[in-house]
């Protein structure tokens, strides 16, 4: 038995793993025992990576479509033929519509510097990551306040004395290190307050659970600020030193009293006052968690801003037990890894097709794009025709709201190529599928893990590929060579790529051999709160009154708009995660399918009784966009105005036999409506009608 230290990819948390290999087969995967935050532990998805490796239902060879799109009629091709074919199609589009006629989308990953370079070299501005559909508004919220994106920020759970989670369901959307820290913190007396319209596993571990009316988080935050400011519970020194616009906030929240918020949120005024006082009592070691997936409502950026502002009032930004800025290699005087995107590349003067970075969408991050705008851009050919789509490790058909509309947009494309490990909905609807080796069969670019203690991690192949697949970075290089931009990809092998990244850092691959990672320092790095907080806003402060927003004509503090309850027989559709599955990517894994074979529709007991719906019964759920059937889970543990389902089910691809047609698709029911200031789609905007079947 041989141990290979690597990085998991059953979700995007990228926990360090130890892969136990015997005779080129993986026997077991454990967490990397050398990482003190992991200690050998593994989540169910990480453990089930072994089933993914040996899954007969993966894409096994390059496939070229022979029948209509989505028919599942393919012919197998050699890599040479498939890459030639894809390059020829992309060249055709480039010749006819210009390079901007080609868009690219991916889930951000270790190789993103390669795909970004590919698009720059090709001459197209239309690089998209999935980020907007997850945390686009959080990104903009952080930039508007601190100048940094959410990716530059972390939470110091271990040292916090009170953690307040607005629907941040840590124990089900599992991250090993955070879960371990939180469990230990709770055992050591850290208080946990959990706020959600639904009782999750995280709610069952909380000292206080508050059931909030769906969509009213901003009202609660305004009232918390009201109490904290009125009772002078905030960190005055910190606010005076580091906050711009406190007086304006004070004026603004004056009318948003706890009594007012009780009417909006359904949370008693005395609970709101009590929470404000309890949190303030332990400041600055308090975290008002700003959220992770932050794509719920059209006011999303303001929900996220308010949460970050609450931390600023607590003085908890860059405090032990609060929120911290992640430090990279540069912070310890070391040279960061080289990235391909750091080369001198052609400038692109075209505007993005989604409008990010233009007057249309001035504030969302153009570095990621606003991917849910892509269907509209394709359908309306506005500002110009987009006719080709390259997809890598992303399933836009199933991740962008309004499934049928996404399909209509894809129908207008001349060419779709997908690089993926399995038959995603997008892959199935593509013209060519280029099968990628899974994370156990391939290495990837080295991971730069910024944090309080920066480090570098290595994903390396544990076994040889089971099928005729290739690593994505090799596929991209193959395409680049054929499109005459190969000079920007100066590698031929994984070793070449790693050496390119490590050049000049003083590190070699040998440094990773013993543990699979390299720590760049021993002690956590905090900036000095007296004079050393390096905010990247124009004022150098935390901008409650935001230059980013105000300069683009948006208010820093919008008046609260009351949330109307859904009409009779209708519910707000909430979505979320379960520990067994990652987004849309694990539903067909045999052992994870066994843990959770279908999603259920959570519906409040009283409402279900009124509609004649019994627990376990099939129900029809319909919205303005479509309808689905799903099994009802009748429970007191959800707010009466909402129904809930786990994201990612109701799959339409027959080749994924285990998850095919199981449960309901949230994507099919959602309307493609966005928070245009923040950039996230409002995934919980839609109201659905629920009826008993039969």
């Amino acid at each position, binding site marked *: 038995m041989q141990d290979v230290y690597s990085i998991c990819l059953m979700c995007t948390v990228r926990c360090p793993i130890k892969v136990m290999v015997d005779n080129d087969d993986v026997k077991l995967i454990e967490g990397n025992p050398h990482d003190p935050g992991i200690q050998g532990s593994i*989540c169910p998805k990480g453990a089930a990576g072994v089933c993914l490796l040996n899954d007969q239902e993966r894409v096994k060879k390059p496939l070229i479509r022979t029948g209509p799109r989505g028919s599942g009629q393919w012919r197998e091709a050699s890599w040479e033929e498939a890459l030639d074919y894809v390059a020829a199609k992309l060249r055709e589009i480039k010749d006819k519509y210009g390079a901007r006629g080609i868009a690219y989308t991916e889930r951000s990953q270790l190789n993103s510097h390669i795909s970004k370079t590919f698009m720059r070299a090709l001459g197209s501005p239309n690089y998209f990551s999935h980020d907007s559909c997850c945390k686009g508004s959080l990104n903009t919220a952080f930039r508007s306040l601190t100048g940094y994106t959410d990716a530059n920020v972390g939470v110091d759970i271990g040292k916090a004395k009170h953690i307040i989670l607005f629907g941040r369901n840590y124990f089900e959307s599992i991250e090993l290190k955070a879960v371990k820290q939180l469990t230990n913190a709770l055992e050591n007396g850290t208080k946990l307050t959990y706020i959600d319209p639904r009782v999750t596993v995280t709610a069952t571990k909380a000292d206080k659970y508050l059931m909030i009316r769906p969509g009213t988080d901003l009202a609660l935050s305004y009232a918390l600020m009201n109490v904290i400011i009125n009772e002078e519970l905030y960190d005055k020194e910190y606010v005076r030193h580091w906050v711009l616009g406190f007086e304006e906030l004070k004026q603004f929240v004056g009318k948003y009293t706890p009594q007012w918020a009780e009417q909006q949120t359904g949370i008693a005024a005395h609970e709101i006052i009590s929470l404000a006082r309890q949190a303030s009592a332990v400041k600055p070691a308090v975290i008002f968690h700003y959220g992770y997936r932050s794509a719920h409502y059209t006011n999303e950026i303001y929900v996220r801003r308010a949460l970050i502002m609450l931390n600023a009032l607590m003085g908890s930004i860059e405090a032990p037990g609060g929120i911290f800025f992640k430090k990279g290699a540069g912070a310890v005087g070391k040279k960061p890894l080289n990235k391909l995107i750091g080369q001198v590349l052609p400038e692109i003067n075209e505007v993005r097709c989604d409008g990010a970075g233009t007057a249309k969408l001035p504030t969302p991050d153009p570095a990621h794009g606003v991917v849910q705008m892509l269907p509209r851009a394709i359908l309306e050919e506005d500002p110009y025709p987009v006719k080709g789509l390259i997809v890598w490790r992303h399933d836009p058909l199933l991740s962008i709201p309004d499934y049928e509309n996404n399909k209509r947009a894809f129908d207008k494309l001349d060419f779709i190529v997908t690089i993926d490990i399995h038959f995603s909905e997008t892959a199935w609807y593509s013209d060519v599928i280029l099968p990628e080796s899974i994370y156990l069969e391939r290495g990837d670019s080295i991971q730069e893990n910024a944090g309080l203690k920066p480090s570098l991690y290595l994903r390396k192949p544990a076994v040889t590929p089971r099928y005729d697949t290739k690593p994505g970075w090799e596929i991209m290089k193959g395409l680049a060579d054929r499109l005459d931009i190969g000079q920007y990809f100066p590698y031929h092998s994984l070793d070449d790529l790693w050496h390119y990244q490590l050049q000049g850092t003083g590190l070699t691959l040998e440094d990773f051999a013993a543990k699979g990672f390299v720590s760049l320092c021993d002690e956590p790095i905090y900036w000095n709160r007296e004079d050393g907080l390096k905010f990247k806003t124009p004022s150098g402060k935390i901008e409650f009154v935001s230059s980013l927003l105000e300069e683009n004509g948006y208010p820093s503090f919008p008046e609260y708009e009351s949330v109307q309850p859904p009409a009779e027989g209708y519910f707000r559709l909430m979505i979320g995660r379960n*520990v067994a599955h990652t987004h849309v990517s694990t539903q067909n894994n045999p052992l994870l399918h066994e*843990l959770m074979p279908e999603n259920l529709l959570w519906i409040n007991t009283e409402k279900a009784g009124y509609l004649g719906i019994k627990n376990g019964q099939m129900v029809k759920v319909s919205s303005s966009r479509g309808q689905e059937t799903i099994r009802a889970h009748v429970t007191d543990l959800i707010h009466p105005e909402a129904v809930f389902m786990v994201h990612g089910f109701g799959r339409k691809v027959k080749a994924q036999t285990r998850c095919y047609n199981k449960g309901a698709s949230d994507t099919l029911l959602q309307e493609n409506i966005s928070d245009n200031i923040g950039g996230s789609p409002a995934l919980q905007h839609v109201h659905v009608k629920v009826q008993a079947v039969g």
Partner: protein
Amino acid sequence: MSTYAIFQDESKCISCRSCQVQCKINKGLSVGPKPNQIIEVGPVNKDGRPKANFVFLSCFHCADPWCVPACPNEAMQKRDTDGVIFINQNRCAGCKSCIMACPWSAPQWDAQKGKAVKCDLCLERIDAGLKPACVTACPTSALSFGPAENVPETKRIRFARQIVASEGLH
């Protein structure tokens, strides 16, 4: 009882079921058999707070096991040195007698191999000085493994309380 025990600190369990999946992987099992399993009870309202019980169940490794004498082929065995009850897979004829005999359904049916399978505390691992696969996997350290006499008193008290509490749920 075996000289070892797996203890579950239920307050730390988040019902992620890593234990269940990792056990199956380690034993080469596919869909179906579950040598260990988390049973979810609740959540119920306790003093205004939603509380759930997540109960880890595998094999108790009984002092006087019913499965061992039930096996006609001497496949089900009790190890002399430490009382761990295990199945010699080469001898298992697939008659399912052990499954019928055990009051807690500890032995499971592996339809792929046509044999019974059960928790053996990962004998090969513990003999190599490691912990059982489920214990190492546990993300919150809710599971721990060691000599049975090391059961911390607090955990026994907590367990007793849980039995009483769960009786109230029926």
